[in-house]
């Protein structure tokens, strides 16, 4: 019915007689009689439709979906009419929409330009020249998972996979590496759409190919290893490579187990690395994370509110980790919270609980504050502000109390700073500029004056505020490190599509890479054969080729002052309800479980010193900075 009406409208759309009159007036012809205007209107709508129909031909031949102004021009020219000048736009005419009085109107906004401005403006950049880039769309019928190709399983597919296991198997079938031995008949590409009629849920086993296993090993090693350059490459790969979804369960387990162990171990550095992995995985647009949130959230939460995250809480900068994890959590809530899983509500509740609790350590409270602070102003308003007074009291007692505990003192200071950071923008909006120190003191108790000054400063220089706070908090720049450190690295990604022919293995990015492929006889054998012998079959030939790691340099340069340099740590720990929100988990070893975890051989310190392989790629992550800071601090103390 709607369709019918739509069609009728199409047939009936006409330029109205009033429009004709207005147009006539605009060119200086007044007083057109109604009849004439009506006839003109009908005729001009007919002509217009003719022109548009003509223009569609030009659109088809321009290989486009969208009719452009040049198509109209060309159509006019083909009809021997002078084209319209002045409507050259590259990206469609920016029509604006307005409605009022029951009428709808689309119009082109004509802005006035200041010629002076245009003349004085700096010249725009010269556009990059046209170039040709080659890649393999498929090799023997299998599409390689390279950035140039669409991800093997789209997010939608991954989502379906959760609901229906048969989908899972089809995805795997599509992506499955055709092992050299497999008979060609087994490739079931034609059965893509066919699902089992009986709907028997298969046990889907996550079989990883050799290449994937290798990739997994390399990535995990690099992520927690000592070489910063390698790590950033690995993180970059995690953040941008398509087709990781098959390894996602492994990664999530790796992270969650890793956090469990290292929290007990108080190994700050590793926790930071793991959180960076979480960040990278979250940044990967091709992954559907919802299925693994039950592992990620507890791990991240632990890093926010755990009582102790490092060996020496009084000197180590575990605050940065808490901030970073809190930001991750905020991001997760934003991305994944739905009305069914209620992530944000549940997390908020946990944090609020931590703030209210008397028993909670100050570090935990700090984390909870940061966590709430990252949830946005609404959460701050309703969950953080009411507790400021209580927190203030607590902080006061610690700072002025008789028992002097260095760690607590630092924690208290940090709480104050973090409160100032999160509250001042909210308060600035909430309270008028007239509110005095007394007002603040009345509402927020001992923290009142501090908040007042913070808000005042915020008002004064909202631009510089971020960096100022950064200085005051002594952290890395909080507002800046929102931009992920790994993204900014211009590291050329050393991914190779491995081919049998050596002439092909040039870097992507150089445009002419695979062109030789067509003619080199080597490739022909590859294409011809169909049964290469090595496991590096086309199809899953992705490798992260790492710069070879310097053999263990034995530098016992341990910035984190780890007491043990043993490569492998065997740890007995509880295997109980670890899946819950960690802050609530009592760490009583009920059922002991042995987890073996390969540890790094100390930290090789500055990235530049990483060895011959680890080049300094201009990468100075927030965390290396932090570690350096920590080092300095430890030297000072």
């Amino acid at each position, binding site marked *: 019915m709607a369709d019918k009406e739509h069609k009728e409208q199409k047939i009936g759309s006409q330029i109205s007689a009033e429009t004709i009159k207005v147009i006539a007036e605009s060119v200086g012809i007044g007083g057109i009689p109604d009849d004439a205007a009506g006839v003109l209107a009908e005729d001009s709508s007919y002509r217009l439709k003719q022109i548009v129909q003509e223009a569609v031909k*030009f659109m088809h*031949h321009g290989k486009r979906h969208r009719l452009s102004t040049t198509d109209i021009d060309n159509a006019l020219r083909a009809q021997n009419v002078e084209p319209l000048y002045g409507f050259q736009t590259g990206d469609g005419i920016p029509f604006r929409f307005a409605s009022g009085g029951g009428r709808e109107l689309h119009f082109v906004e004509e802005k006035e330009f200041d010629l002076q401005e245009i003349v004085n403006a700096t010249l725009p950049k010269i556009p990059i020249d046209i170039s040709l880039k080659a890649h393999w769309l498929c090799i023997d019928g299998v599409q390689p998972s390279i950035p*140039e190709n669409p991800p093997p399983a789209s997010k939608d597919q991954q989502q379906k996979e959760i609901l229906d296991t048969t989908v899972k198997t089809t995805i795997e079938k599509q992506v499955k590496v055709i092992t050299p031995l497999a008979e060609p008949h087994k490739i079931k590409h034609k059965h893509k759409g066919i699902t089992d009629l009986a709907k028997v849920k298969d046990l889907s086993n996550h079989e990883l190919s050799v290449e994937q296993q290798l990739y997994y090993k390399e990535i995990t090693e690099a992520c927690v290893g000592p070489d910063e350059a390698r790590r950033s490459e690995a993180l970059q790969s995690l953040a941008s490579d398509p087709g990781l979804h098959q390894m996602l369960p492994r990664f999530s387990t790796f992270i969650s187990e890793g956090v469990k162990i290292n929290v007990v171990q108080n190994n700050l550095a590793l926790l930071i690395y793991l959180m960076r992995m979480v960040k990278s995985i979250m940044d990967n647009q091709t992954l559907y994370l919802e299925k693994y949130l039950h592992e990620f959230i507890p791990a991240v939460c632990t890093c926010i509110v755990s009582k102790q995250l490092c060996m020496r809480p009084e000197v180590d900068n575990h605050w940065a980790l808490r901030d970073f994890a809190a930001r991750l959590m905020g991001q997760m809530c934003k991305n994944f919270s739905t009305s069914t899983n209620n992530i944000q509500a549940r997390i908020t509740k946990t944090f609020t609980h931590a703030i209210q609790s008397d028993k909670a350590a100050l570090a935990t409270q700090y984390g909870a504050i940061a966590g709430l602070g990252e949830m946005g102003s609404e959460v701050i308003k309703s969950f953080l502000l009411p507790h400021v007074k209580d927190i203030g009291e607590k902080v006061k007692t610690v700072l002025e109390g008789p028992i002097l505990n260095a760690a607590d003192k630092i924690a208290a200071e940090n709480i104050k700073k973090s409160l100032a950071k999160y509250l001042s923008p909210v308060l600035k909006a909430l309270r008028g500029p007239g509110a005095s120190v007394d007002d603040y003191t009345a509402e927020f108790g001992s923290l009142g004056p501090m908040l007042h000054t913070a808000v005042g400063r915020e008002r004064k220089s909202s631009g510089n505020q971020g960096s100022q706070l950064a200085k005051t908090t002594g952290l890395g720049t909080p507002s800046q490190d929102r931009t992920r450190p790994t993204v900014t690295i211009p590291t050329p990604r050393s991914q190779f599509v491995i081919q049998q022919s050596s002439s092909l293995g040039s870097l992507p990015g150089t445009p002419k890479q695979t062109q030789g492929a067509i003619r080199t006889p080597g490739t*022909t054998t590859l294409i011809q054969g169909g049964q290469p012998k090595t496991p590096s079959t086309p199809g899953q030939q992705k490798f992260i080729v790492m710069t070879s790691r310097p053999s263990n340099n034995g530098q016992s340069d341990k910035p984190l002052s780890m007491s043990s340099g043993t490569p492998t740590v065997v740890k007995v720990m509880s295997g109980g309800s670890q899946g819950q929100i960690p802050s609530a988990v009592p760490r009583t070893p009920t059922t002991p479980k042995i987890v073996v975890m390969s540890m790094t051989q100390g930290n090789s310190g500055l990235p530049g010193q990483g060895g011959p392989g680890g080049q300094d790629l201009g990468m100075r992550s927030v965390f290396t900075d932090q570690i350096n800071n920590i080092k300095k601090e430890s030297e000072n103390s």
Partner: protein
Amino acid sequence: MAGNEVPFSDSLKTQGNMQQTLPLQNATKADVSDKQTLLAVLQFLKKNNLKGTEELLKREASIKDDDVRPPTSSQSETDVSHALAAYKSADDPSRFADYYTNLKTFIESCLDAHKVELSVILYPVFIHMYLEMVYNEHESYAISFFRRFSKEQEDFYQEDLQRLATVTKKEHMKGNELMESFKASKFVIKMSRDSYNHLKRYLQENKMKPLLTIIQEHLFIDVFDGVPRTKQQIDATSGGLMGESERDANKVKVFYGLLKEPDINMPLEEEDEAPEGDDKPKKKKPKKDPLMMKKSKNDPHAPAFNRIPLPEMKDQDKMEKITAYREALKRVKVNRENLPTICFYTVLNSYQGVTSIDMAEDSSLLSVGFADSTIRVFTTSSQKLRGMKTAGELDSIDRDADDVLERMMDDRTAADSKLLTGHSGPVYAARFSRDRKYLVSCSEDGTVRLWSLLTWTNLVCYKGHNHPVWDVEFSPYGHYFVSVGHDRTARLWATDHHVPIRIFSGHLSDMDCVKFHPNSNYIATGSNDRFIRLWDILNGNCVRIFSGHKGSVQTLCFSPDGRFLASSGVDSIVLLWDISTGGLMAQMKGHTDTVYSLCFSRDGGVLASGGLDNSVKLWDVVKVLQEVDTDADTSIPSSVHVNDSAGLLIGSWATKATPVLCIHFTRKNLMIASGPAALQEDKSPHKT
């Protein structure tokens, strides 16, 4: 055999052959126009009472008195008014809807078998009734009639209906492209004899004059003996602007076989091959010769070698043939079991818009035409593109040297891509000659340009189409090329003539694409009127008309053996035609957007397609040929089965956001696809 007995369609079958452009006819035409000029002069003299001169001229030109008759008005005007007058009738417009409903009820009441066949006439009847009302200036009746019944028409006619809907006034009918088509040609309908008799009886019983007039004057019913066709069969071949193709139009014999390969000096081959690989050639040698012999045996379907004069082979061409042959020996299989490898060339940073991409036959060059009227040629091999040395330098070269061709080139000009400028509108096609020395391009500016790939300059600008030229192609044997355009003509040119040597016309709308038959004796054109025509170059006749597309035809491809033709376009269906019978063999549905490129694998077993839906799809031609019913009588439409099973799709590979404008198989059957990377603003419509 059938159809001729039909009383009212018999006399109306003359049209359809007017599109021949024989040189001979050209000559007579010239005579006629001369005579007309003379007559015009005589009339002028008569009008002004210059009797003496008139007599003198008459005697001199030996024109009889009867010839000179004052024309009432200018020729074209009479034509138009005469043709349009067909619609003139004194009938009450309000009754048209009743007639139409009556016809519909009759069809509904028929047996199911006849119902589907008869319902085909509803669309043309609807159109002509509407036009009659418009012509007689019953605008409001026409509009309400249109609104009431237009939705009932087939989906694939809706585009035409939309265009028709814009015509609501008599004045609009003049000069409208669609109108002229409807008034000038008859809507062709194929129908079984039984159904036809039903219809005849109905029309005789219910004396509805306007209906009868329309069916008599504007419809051509092609009656065949046999069982009625099913809905599926009808739908497969209908969809053309003017219904289906007549069976008679496809009766002429077409020499679709390949030309006899010239004997190539075998010793040359041996010399060349021996040093390369000692083990392989020895095994293959004995096999190869019989193969060659078989081919060179006379194919009954092949045209004589000199049917169309072809340029003589140069030494270099022979060398090229040998390399091609040698490469073909290394060809891999591509079929359902052995899926191909696809190399994709993405054109990056093409902000101005890519309008065409083409690949040289040997896959070493890629041409890209842009909307900003430039052409770029890229090399895809390690061999850089070089220009020729200047005349002075060339003079000093030893002409007898073996590597004289190599010495001619100037290494200083080596580059990965060359820019060709000269057109003044979007370049809609740029194609290489087989020897890769020339490139021919066509553009919106109405010109066709020939470029030298030795000097990288424009050699000739062919003017003839006054409207945008949509497509151009070189003959596989060089020398000739053909262009098609908005002016609804296809023109055959020889590179050394600045005027076309053949003009083919007959399509009712723009000709959108053109392809040379592998034997260079025929060309196929696809048009916006949704027909595909095959033309004989020798005499300019249209020898095949294929109907079945539901949208403008944008791409064509002949199978390597010359027997089959694949086509596709805006309707995103890929159709496979048998040239020998003119029948539709298979319908391949799977694309979701316009298909712009088709290519057969070198062995012809697989067809690849690609288009705006950002995917490359592969279709199984072997399976079509296996499943074809060889016993079916192709002269009876209802016995022909069109294969449209979903199993024909072998594979589909999607690009990230790149439309596929060019697909090509190298001589070794490696697939190459190419397209421009989508610009950011282009992405949004895909998503929403």
